[in-house]
């Protein structure tokens, strides 16, 4: 396929470091959009702040780079005002689950018809490697020089508990799986989440002996287990394993279907 027709080529080179996984996520998203045959005019790509949130600047859609953590709030207004738009939010672990955590869980609860792709690299990359809500306990960041004293969020379980219609997790290494999940998320009505584990060799890898980008990809290859396989494993066996798969895939009315009932009742009341 022709990726270039979706890219704003004059905005290259992008800001992502050598070995960063974010470009792999972008490529996957473009492959799926191309497969679905969506018109570029009908797509709105919305982001917050951070490395992942620079994605919209590079693609030829309606693109909105908002304030830190607030992409889903802006996207909610956009989707309600123009339901014809395919609204996709691209965000990071810090943007989505620290400063934007409230909007994330409420978007899931509300089941607004938006797909959120979270590039989870366990770190604040753009500001130089600070601890994030998904940094594993004990791991180092510039603000946890003695190891992270906090427990991490499991983003997919958080989204599932908050009520999302579809939740899946993949690594960037398993790109075919990532494509499948992104396609399922984009084509499903309601709030859908794809958490993609993306290596950050520059900040996270460097501080935690992760090696190069290739080393970190190989680590994804070696240590990934599916939800099905993980079900039969002990907590000790699951230590340091990356559990991937579809966590939620359910049918439920989205926010705007519910609001149509509100409009019907309101119009009925005025007659």
């Amino acid at each position, binding site marked *: 396929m022709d990726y270039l027709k979706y890219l704003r080529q004059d905005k290259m080179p992008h800001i992502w470091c050598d070995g960063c996984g974010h470009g792999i996520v972008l490529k996957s998203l473009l492959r799926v959009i191309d497969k679905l045959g969506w018109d570029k005019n009908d797509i709105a790509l919305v982001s917050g702040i951070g490395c992942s949130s620079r994605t919209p600047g590079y693609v030829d859609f309606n693109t909105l780079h908002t*304030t830190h953590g607030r992409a889903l709030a802006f996207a*909610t207004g956009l989707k309600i005002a123009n339901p014809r*738009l395919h609204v996709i939010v691209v965000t990071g672990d810090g943007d989505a689950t620290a400063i934007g955590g409230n909007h994330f869980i409420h978007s899931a609860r509300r089941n607004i018809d938006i797909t959120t792709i979270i590039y989870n690299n366990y770190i604040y990359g753009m500001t130089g490697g600070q601890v994030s809500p998904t940094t594993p306990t004990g791991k180092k960041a510039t603000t946890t020089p003695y190891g992270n004293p906090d427990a991490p969020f499991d983003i997919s379980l958080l989204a599932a508990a908050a009520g999302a219609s579809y939740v899946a997790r993949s690594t960037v290494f398993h790109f075919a799986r990532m494509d499948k999940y992104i396609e399922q998320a984009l084509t499903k009505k309601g709030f859908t989440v794809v958490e993609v584990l993306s290596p950050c060799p520059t900040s996270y890898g460097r501080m935690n002996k992760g090696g190069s980008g290739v080393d970190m990809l190989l680590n994804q290859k070696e240590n990934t287990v599916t939800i099905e396989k993980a079900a039969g494993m002990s907590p000790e066996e699951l230590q340091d394993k990356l559990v991937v798969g579809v966590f939620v895939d359910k049918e439920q009315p989205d926010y705007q279907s519910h609001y149509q009932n509100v409009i019907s009742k309101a119009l009925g009341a005025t007659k």
Partner: protein
Amino acid sequence: MTETSLKKPNLRIFMMQGNTACAEGAIAAGCRFFAGYPITPSTEIAEVLAKRLPQVGGNFIQMEDEIASMGAVIGASLAGVKSMTATSGPGFSLKQENIGFAAMAEIPVVIVDVQRGGPSTGLPTHVSQSDVMQARWGTHGDHGIIAFCPSTVRETFDLTVKAFNCAERFRTPVLLMTDEIIGHLSEKVELPDPASLEIIDRWRPTVPPQEYLPYQMTDSDIPPMANFGEGYRYHVTGLAHDETGFPTNDPVKVEQQLLRINRKIDRYRDLIVEVEKFDTDDMEILVIAYGATARSAKKAVSLARESGIKAGLLKLKTLWPFPDKEIEALYKPVKKIIVPELNLGQMAHEIEWAVRREKPVIRINRINGEPITPSEILAAIAG
């Protein structure tokens, strides 16, 4: 609006509170999206719109917080739907970052602040005018801002319509700085026929999409705005950007855009600024007031006139851009200026600048949640 009035659209006389008039003014202006969060004393605006917006094919949503409400209205406006949020002091503080985004990205939205006592949680059910400087300087960075301030229920309706018109015309966030007294005050009001209102919509691009510059340096200083989903695929960011909308660190381009978003408000100030004068022709004492306090001031001036004192009132219906020219045109003949306000002199300071400290500016200030009475202002006039 009552069911009866809806069934009889010709009957335009109501007993209505300011917050309801704000909601009705928004609908009359074409607002079809409201996102909000409950906060006293603004909540009635949300409650009325929760009922009314779906009746006119619009959308109401109660968001998870004030920040989300502000983000959602920006998103909705970017899709082409006129949008509003309403709040009070603490919520106004929370919205500031995204108000700055709307100013920077030039997205038309209306933000209502029904002022209550502060700082912090302050006096949720009591009146204040202590957010008027936050309206001007609340968010970081330099940008122009438009803020209106009603002192009657009818003015609340009219200025809400004007707020939308200015937001659309100048591609900017507009603030309606009402207060607890005006928001909760019920009075008889005759509303205009919506068909008689002048409604302004944003200037849309006519060029082919590949030629569209969302932040073009136009003669008017206001670039045309395309709505998302209409074929103009462009980039919107809070980062400093050039005419194309993409981020830049080029100091020439950064300055060009930032000066324009300031200048576009300044140069149209005559279209934005609105004041009202009472008994100012032969006055020797000038009272300058706004919002709820202007009601007491008007009464005080008429009481002064009854006792033979030549007092006059200048009521500010626009707070920002500041009505400096209107004050300059009035102050020369007067002996003193009295500025009552429910804060510690936020606008008095601005007024002292406008009159170049040539006249004594006597401040009457209150921050305990109680209004300033006509007799207090009268005492200052007579004193």
